[in-house]
């Protein structure tokens, strides 16, 4: 009961932020009614997906300060579980998604135990390594389609199918994802207020102090990592149903991990809105830059050049990301 109360409790946020979030929520809800192109719709879907990925990352990476660059492996596990379950045994999405989450969490416990013995850079690189190992494994594993991947045929699974989550129009996916998005925000808000959340923030601050306060640092990190994993895995499942064509090279590539981490870090690691802001800025920027300057003007890669440059500037100027900039600005305004 208290968990639900915590999840819905935004009282500690400034009033302006609450109003702003209402406005954003309203905009997101009415968005499909506005006369936008399908490209805009696809971009918004990407935004929702990456915002949730980023929120997942933010638990362990932002609140916990453990820079995880291997989130793609959980996108992969989630995506593969639902797809394999659908293709092999015709298990509907609503069963296979929790299954995927369970498998992901299990895997996260298995590798999390040794992983969290490492710190800092060593941890970050090790997460990349595990993700790549899993990807290599999937690339030869015939059961999951090896390198050619898996494919959901629109003939075999005709849309619309609410059980299997197969739709033709993007708007279904949009509202579904929006639901997940709101849910994710609430879970995030719960986490922020839970004992684990507080403990983790303390760990990020100083592990020795945390230990002295009776926190099992290793275990708290593993638990949070599992939570982060569950987020990413669930979104991976939806993502797979949305793109309907998954293969290790695409679904589990390091680029996905990097994008997830970068969006959250750029938006502001360790804040509730950080990953959302990161995704809201970077996803449209990336896809529109790519479309205009990349595809139309023939400047291939310009999107990521600008993207990379912005990241460099932010890292050098304000390590807390865009949210940090905002807070600094706000602080300056309220200071005098």
């Amino acid at each position, binding site marked *: 009961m208290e968990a639900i109360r915590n999840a819905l409790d935004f009282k500690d946020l400034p009033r302006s932020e609450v109003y702003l979030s209402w406005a954003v929520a309203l905009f997101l809800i009415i968005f499909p009614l*506005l*006369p*936008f*192109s*399908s*490209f*805009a719709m*696809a*971009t918004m879907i990407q935004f929702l997906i990456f915002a949730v990925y980023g929120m997942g990352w933010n638990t362990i990476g932002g609140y916990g300060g453990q820079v995880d660059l291997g989130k793609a492996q959980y996108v992969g596990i989630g995506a593969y579980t639902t797809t394999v379950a659908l293709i092999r045994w015709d298990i509907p999405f609503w069963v296979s998604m929790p299954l995927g989450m369970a498998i992901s969490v299990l895997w996260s416990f298995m590798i999390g135990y040794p992983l969290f013995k490492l710190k800092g850079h060593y941890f970050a690189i090790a997460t990349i390594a595990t993700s790549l190992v899993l990807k290599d494994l999937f*690339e*030869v594993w015939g059961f999951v389609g*090896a*390198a*050619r*991947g898996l*494919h*959901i*045929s*629109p*003939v*075999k699974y005709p*849309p619309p199918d609410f059980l299997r989550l197969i739709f*033709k129009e*993007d708007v279904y996916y949009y509202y579904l994802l929006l639901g997940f998005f709101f849910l994710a925000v609430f879970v995030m808000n719960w986490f922020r207020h839970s004992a684990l959340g507080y403990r983790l923030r303390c760990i990020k601050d100083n592990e020795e102090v945390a230990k002295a306060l009776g926190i099992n640092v290793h275990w708290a990190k593993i638990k949070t990592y599992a939570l982060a994993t569950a987020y990413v895995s669930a979104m991976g499942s939806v993502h797979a149903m949305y*793109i*309907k*064509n998954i*293969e290790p*090279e*695409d679904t589990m590539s390091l680029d996905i991990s990097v994008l997830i981490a970068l969006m959250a870090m750029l938006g502001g690691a360790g804040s509730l809105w950080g990953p959302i802001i990161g995704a809201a800025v970077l996803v*449209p920027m990336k896809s*529109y830059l790519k*479309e205009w300057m990349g*595809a139309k003007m023939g400047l*291939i890669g310009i999107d990521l050049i600008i993207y990379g440059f912005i990241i460099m500037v932010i890292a050098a100027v304000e390590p807390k990301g865009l949210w940090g900039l905002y807070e600094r600005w706000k602080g300056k305004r309220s200071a005098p």
Partner: protein
Amino acid sequence: MKRLFLALGFLALFLALFLMEKGAYAQDEITIGVIYPLTGGAASAGRELQMGAELAMEIANGKMPELAMDMAKEAGIKSMGGKKIKLIFKDHEGNPTLGADLAKKLILDDKVVGILGCYHSSVTKAVSAVCEQYGVPMINDSSTSPVLTRQGYKWFWRTTPHDGTFTMDLFEFLKGLSEGKAKGVKPVPKEELMNLAAACEKTEWGSAASQLLEDYAKKYGYNLKRNLLYTAKSADLSSEVRSLLAVNPDAMLFASYTSDAILMVKTLKAQKAKPKLIWGQNAGFDTPEFRSTLGEDIVGILTRTVFSPKLGEVKTISTQINELYKKKAGYDLSDASSRGFTGVQTWFHVLEKAGSTKPEDIQRAANSIEIPGEQLVVPWKGIKFATSGEEPGQNIMGSGIIGQYQKNKEGQVVLEIVYPFELSTANLIYPFPGY
């Protein structure tokens, strides 16, 4: 107050961003979305395809009575009052997800009548699913994984023969070789060519090709001792090559895209590999870049293909189009460009027959067209899509040839036809000369 304006400004910018994205094309044009790999490892093939397709579009939209083609007779599509075809090219970078996104965008935002593409079988698979979902016709000109036409799709047609045909060609060729059918070569005892080793790239196309090699080798009684998959993007294939050589193969078989095909041959040379035969499952082995990069190193290599300039010796239309293409590109038509050309040509015939841009009409037309072989630059008997059976949408009149790179009298490396044996344009070089 200032803050409010700032916020409003941002919001306006944001909305403008979204609203600006709405393509509109003139009504008197029929737009076809063409999705090719214009960048990435297969970019050179993509450019070939694009130029081939553009050439066909120019011919269809213009009037060139000197060509013995229906497409060249009138400007535009006659049954629709001379409407012109417009191709919108998109680059999928070899990435299926991106391909599917592009297809969706073409269908929903650009409102294309149909789709053409996509070279990589993996991308074609994803794009064809989108087309199937939206009921938009798609013609595939250049992907050869047999799986594509076995999905039961109603909106997918493929002009090119698939790898089943090509692989069978290979084994027929090997069989003929031991029966003494090959031009200029004495019968080769089957034991001499018993041991095969294959390396295929590992996505949809290559892994399907690999499976076919396995199946046919068994069927024809050959011993495929090694059959490995590799990443087309890898920049070093030396351990792959060593692994192949470790089983001492008589013939080495490959399914590679462009850059990896080049790398593969280079590595073979560096390792001083000396099998008796090297055969490439087209794609990379038949691009101009492959030829120009490797020069004389490829003499003796076999590749399956659907086009060789040598075809001109038997087909005048091939020579004519090749001349036009040469003027445009500076070099001969190749496997890829001829297929891109044929793809647009097929679209033209389908639209001409349909007489409207309604998907149902196009579907009906596609299922009933029949383009005679003499109109095509490729050596097929024609184009006619299967409407029933195992492979609906597959062109049942396609066929492949096997070519061998040989040095002609002027010292240029050209692709001579060695199979079908009756079409042979030169003596087969056997065994592979080595480096």
